[in-house]
């Protein structure tokens, strides 16, 4: 195999720029982190809300929540990104569409965050719904018998228990969001995978570039797992049995 190894490639100056290839990977990692963090936070809030509505007794809200979940869960993320990036600006009123296309800074970042949020929130709504349903039905009855309003019942009885139940799968959804953020390269976001490919195309040191990206993804995954583990532990109530 005649491949010319050069692990020092990351310290070489990138063509046309005063910075090094390493800097490309760092900016890529920053975009990946920003996209993941923004999308997962929003998806957590929206998914939690939609999942809660789907367990309510108000028929129209349940129906709307189900519709939201089915639509955004069953369309591939890539297609949702294309729609957010190419289609939505065309369908909006002209002035708003022009703003999105011309004046908004980082259009691919915002489209990526919106698409990733919709896709992830649909999965999280499913998770939250299952979590709330798994909290014994007796809890709901007990809360109502104590005279709690529905809002109080959800905020003080059902959701605090449900969040603890769904925490392990929530962690793996956070990792999925991190991995899914790489799909944004198809609409031109220069995140980690895109930058790794960039380094490989300019330097021909493909092996080194992809290895670096792989290691960064593994390290960030470990970091996410660690942080989620800390949050999970802080939520644990000592002596509580499930």
């Amino acid at each position: 195999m005649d491949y010319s190894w050069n692990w020092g490639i990351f310290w070489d100056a990138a063509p046309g720029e005063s910075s090094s290839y390493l800097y490309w990977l760092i900016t890529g990692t920053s975009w990946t982190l920003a996209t993941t963090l923004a999308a997962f936070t929003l998806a957590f809030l929206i998914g939690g809300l939609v999942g809660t509505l789907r367990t309510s007794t108000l028929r129209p809200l349940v129906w709307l929540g189900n519709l939201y979940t089915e639509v955004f869960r069953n369309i591939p993320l890539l297609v949702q990104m294309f729609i957010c990036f190419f289609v939505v600006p065309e369908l909006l009123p002209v002035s708003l569409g022009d703003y999105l296309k011309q004046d908004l800074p980082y259009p691919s970042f915002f489209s990526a965050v919106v698409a990733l949020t919709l896709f992830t929130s649909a999965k999280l709504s499913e998770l939250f719904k299952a979590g709330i349903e798994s909290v014994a039905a007796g809890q709901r009855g007990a809360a109502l018998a104590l005279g709690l309003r529905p809002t109080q019942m959800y905020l003080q009885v059902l959701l605090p228990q449900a969040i603890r139940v769904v925490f392990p799968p929530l962690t793996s959804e956070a990792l999925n969001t991190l991995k899914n953020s790489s799909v944004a390269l198809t609409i031109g976001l220069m995140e980690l995978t895109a930058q790794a490919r960039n380094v490989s195309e300019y330097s021909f040191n493909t092996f080194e570039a992809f290895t670096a990206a792989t290691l960064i993804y593994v390290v960030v995954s470990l970091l996410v797992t660690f942080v989620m583990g800390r949050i999970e532990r802080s939520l644990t109530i000592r002596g509580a049995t499930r």
Partner: protein
Amino acid sequence: MFDLDPSVIVRAMPALWNGLKFTLLLTLVAMSVGIVAGTLLALMRLSHNRAMRGFALAYVTVMRSIPLVLVIFWFYFLMPLLLQMAFGTERPVQIGPVVTAFVTFCMFEAAYYSEIIRGGIQSISGGQKQAAAALGLRPTQAMMYVILPQALRRMAPLLLTQTIILFQDTSLVYVLSIADFTGAASKFAQRDGRLVELYLFVALVYLVICYLLSNLTKRMKRNMGRTA
């Protein structure tokens, strides 16, 4: 406002149909190979042989910790070099994006299926294994005829759910410029400048197919609750 022109879809139909056939073929092949290889990986993970256990664990962990897009790039770059090493040819063996896509999806999905199947095998109670041993079955026979059939049946809804995810993920062969369903639509859309109609149509088709399949998984789960 934008005025929609539905006739674009009609004109694009032959190309879209070919693309959809490719997407379905890729999904079916990756599912079949993925489940077989995933079963092998799961058995390796649960075997007593340390080396096998370590290999399966490393394989599954690495595959699951990096994004699919990066895995596709890895394979597209590595496979020609690996084939060159394997056959001792002078130059890297060019295999093209389509073969790359098939190999990548089979290997990638195997890791995900194997985790589901491992869970299934572990969920079968130890009594089944002991009963098989008491009947005089060897461990291999017990696995083949007693434990695996039950595990796969119990995990069928999850395997189908994973297949729906796989079906959606195949759209990522876009990064290799393959004309799968999304890729065909994208090529047509860019040529004729009709992105709105084509992307909305593509989304609708995916939505209908995945919705029907996910209803099927729900029905499978319900039926299982009844028989178990």
